[in-house]
Each structure stands twice: as C-alpha cells, then as structure tokens.
C-alpha cells in the first residue's frame, strides 16, 4: 500500500467528535492510523496545516487530503465506502422503481396507479435520508453544548443546565425509529450520537441524575449500541472521561 492510500485520523481519546469517525471507519472495515493529539502539550504541525481554520480534531487525511468537521467526515466516509450504508441508500427503492417501470412497459401500458406507486418510492427513501440528516444535525447543535451546561457549571447554573440537557435527551428519544434511529439497522444518526454517551456518566455524577430514569428508551438504545464492536472499541471508559472532566473543573475553580 503506497503512502497516499493511508487513512489517517488526527484524534483525541476523549473527543466524541473523533469517536464518530472511528465508529464509521470501523463499521466499514477500513484500516486507519489514529494519531493522538496531546491537547495539553499543544497542537501538532500536521493538525495546524490540515485544519488551519478551526485547528481542531478530528481531521481525516485520505490520500493526504484533509477532511474536517466530524459529521462531514462521516458523510464522506459513507460516500467513498458505500457498504454497509450508514445513510439509507435508496438502492432498494430505485430497484423497485425500475421493476415497476419495466412491468408497466411490458404488461400494462400507462397505468396511473403503478406510476404513482413507483414515483412515490423514491421520495420516501430520500425522506428517510433527510430525516437522518436532520437528527444528526440536531445532535450536532444541541448535545455537546447541552452537556457543557452541566460540566462547566455549578450551583444554580448547573441545575438549569441539567434541566435543559434532559429536555434535549427527551426530544432525541422521541426520534428513535426502532432499535436504532433509522429503524432496524445501526446508521448515520447512531454513529453521530452514540459517542456523546461516553460523557453521560460524568454528567450524571456532576448533576446527580440518571439518564436511565429520565430517558429509559434512549438508555436501552445506548446499551444496544455498546454491544457493537465498532462502538465498543471506539468509545473510552466513561470513568476516564469523568476523571478528565474533574481535572478541568478543578483547573477552572469549579470544585
């Protein structure tokens, strides 16, 4: 394998955003090299050159070309390595559409019922992809910052943060389509959302609550995801995340 075939991930062990990429690559069976950034020692030359605008992990380097922003990286991975699909692919819907077009051609001539049927298959599938993008975007906008409202605060501000965080979880729980967000199969939204669960133990400790009590369905989804190899090997031990955040809180005079 030449140097340019390498898939390199600029990583930080506690970053839920980097975890998303690791899960996506693992789901697709792609071998990659994870290079840990030492956020205490300072950012590497490679990181600063690859992501000059934001200077943040994760960055995926594919054929030496950088891709930044975790949800964009996961979409890229899904497009370059299509199987197994994270976003619904519409291959089935397209195949069904072709079948019916062929049927109409051979057997029926133009029949309004059948054309309506096959024309409606594609929008249904694209709608499913769109809903997946919507909920991944919701997770991106709300979940991490919602958690910050807990671990970056104390006293009344922490209590308010906890209330808002639980509300966000309840909205997210309402979007569960089945065993996973898209239904029966682990997919795009699951990949984007599950890394944040590695920080939940810390939030529970700081906030004095349990995700399981507030959102039992979401809690069950977390357990299901953790049984997958791709997730189990990409997420850190939650107690290590807790220690890490305790250190941050001490450094900022919160404890």
């Amino acid at each position, binding site marked *: 394998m030449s140097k340019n075939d390498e898939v390199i991930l600029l990583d930080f062990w506690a970053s839920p955003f980097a975890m998303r990429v690791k899960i996506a690559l693992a789901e697709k069976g792609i071998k990659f090299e994870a290079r840990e950034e030492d956020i205490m020692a300072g950012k590497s030359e490679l990181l600063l050159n690859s992501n000059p605008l934001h200077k943040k992990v994760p960055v995926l380097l594919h054929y030496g070309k950088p891709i930044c922003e975790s949800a964009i990286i996961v979409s890229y991975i899904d497009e370059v390595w299509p199987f197994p699909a994270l976003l619904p692919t519409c291959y089935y819907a397209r195949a069904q559409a072709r079948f019916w077009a062929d049927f109409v051609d051979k057997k029926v001539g133009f029949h309004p019922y059948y054309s309506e049927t096959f024309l409606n298959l594609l929008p249904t599938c694209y709608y499913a*992809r769109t809903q997946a993008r919507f909920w991944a975007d919701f997770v991106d906008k709300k979940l991490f910052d919602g958690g910050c409202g807990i671990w970056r605060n104390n006293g009344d501000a922490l209590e308010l943060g906890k209330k808002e965080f639980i509300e966000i979880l309840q909205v997210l729980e309402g979007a569960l389509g089945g065993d996973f967000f898209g239904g029966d199969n682990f997919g795009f939204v699951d990949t984007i959302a599950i890394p944040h669960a590695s920080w939940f133990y810390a939030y529970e400790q700081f906030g004095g609550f349990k995700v399981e009590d507030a959102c039992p369905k979401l809690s069950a989804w977390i357990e299901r995801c953790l049984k997958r190899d791709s997730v189990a090997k990409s997420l850190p031990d939650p107690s290590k995340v807790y220690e890490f955040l305790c250190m941050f809180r001490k450094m900022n005079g919160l404890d």
Partner: protein
Amino acid sequence: MAGSDVKLLGAWQSPFVMRARIALNLKSVEYEFLEEKFGSKSDLLLKSNPVYKKIPVLLHHNRPICESLIIVQYVDETWTSGPSILPSDPYDCAIERFWAAYVDDKFFPSLFGIAKAESEEKKAEAIEQTKEMVVLLENAFKECSKGGEFFGGERIGFLDIALGSVVGWVRAVESMTGFQLSDKETTPGFARWAERFCTHEAVKEVMPGTETLIEFGKMALSNLPPTN
C-alpha cells in the same frame, strides 16, 4: 406528480428561506409559497417544525423537511432531472459542506453581529472580523471554483446557494454602516461572484433589493428580534 404537492413555509427576507427557493428554482419545481407573518408563527409552522419552530419548512406530500441546507440536499436528491446541486465527487462535496457549515456557524453570526452591535467599538470589531472572513471565503472560492464562475464551477452549486443567499444582507449592512465588507481590490473574486450570483435566473426573482432589506432591518432591530 413529484412537483404537484410542494409547499414552502417562509418569509421573503430570510436568507435561509432563499436557499430553499433557489434550489427549487434550479430544478424548475413549482411550489406554493406560504408566507409567515413577521413576529408570529402559524399553527402549520409550529406543527411542521416542533423542534425548532423556524422557517424554512418544505412540505412535500405533506411531509415536513426542516433546516435550509438539509432542504437543499433533499431537493437535489429528489428532483434528479434538473442540474445537480452537490458535486458528484465525495471530496469536493466535503469541501463545499465544510464551507457551508462555516457560513452558518461563523459568517452569518458575525455579519448580523455588526447590525446588533451595542457600541461603535463593538461594531468596528465586528466589521473587521467579518472582513477577515470574506478574505477566507475569497480563498475558498479560488479552491472550489477551479477557474469557473461559481463555487460549484461552471454552474451554481451547494456552496453558492449557502453563501449567496446572504449577499443581499451583506449589501444592506454595507449600506447601513458605510463600510465595504468586500470590494474589487481586496476580494475581487468574491465581488465578481456575488454580482454573477445575484443576476442568475434562479436567484434574481427571490433576492430582495438592498433598500427593501435596509427598511426591514431597521424595523426588525427596533421591534422584535427576527424569526431566524
């Protein structure tokens, strides 16, 4: 059939709504535009977008699609007979999505920060910050356009729509403050692109004039905060 049941909840002055309209125009999709009244939210909006309660919302066969860039992607995938909006190459796609996210997360807030600044000092800071961002977008234009007229190359694409939708407001802010955020000397690529974008077939009828936006901006700042 695909185009017979398409409605868009929106408002003429919203750059986010404009994105959806440009995408629908590019694909020649006929749609019913349901104008939301400024300062209030209709029952249909609240029912269709219970999570954010914001425009735009696209209703296709009565199914709601929310968030402007997600709507643009949905339009691109669903109406395949029109020109493609996102590039076919995954890397080019990732680059356009990266800059579109930058527009939403950094550029828009900085631009509107100029209008909302509470002191002359803060306004000057916001102007400087926004000007620096335009320089970055100029560089992005060179990278993405590959010598073409638009970020999408020879034709309008995803990033053109994401950024171009705010050009009307850039001009309004320039007029209101007397400061140029981009010009033909420091950011010539951006300035020329903005001109071409605003006069494009799919854009010109939905891009409000600068004077109209200034009037709206003054009214909005003195009354309620904008719905977006």
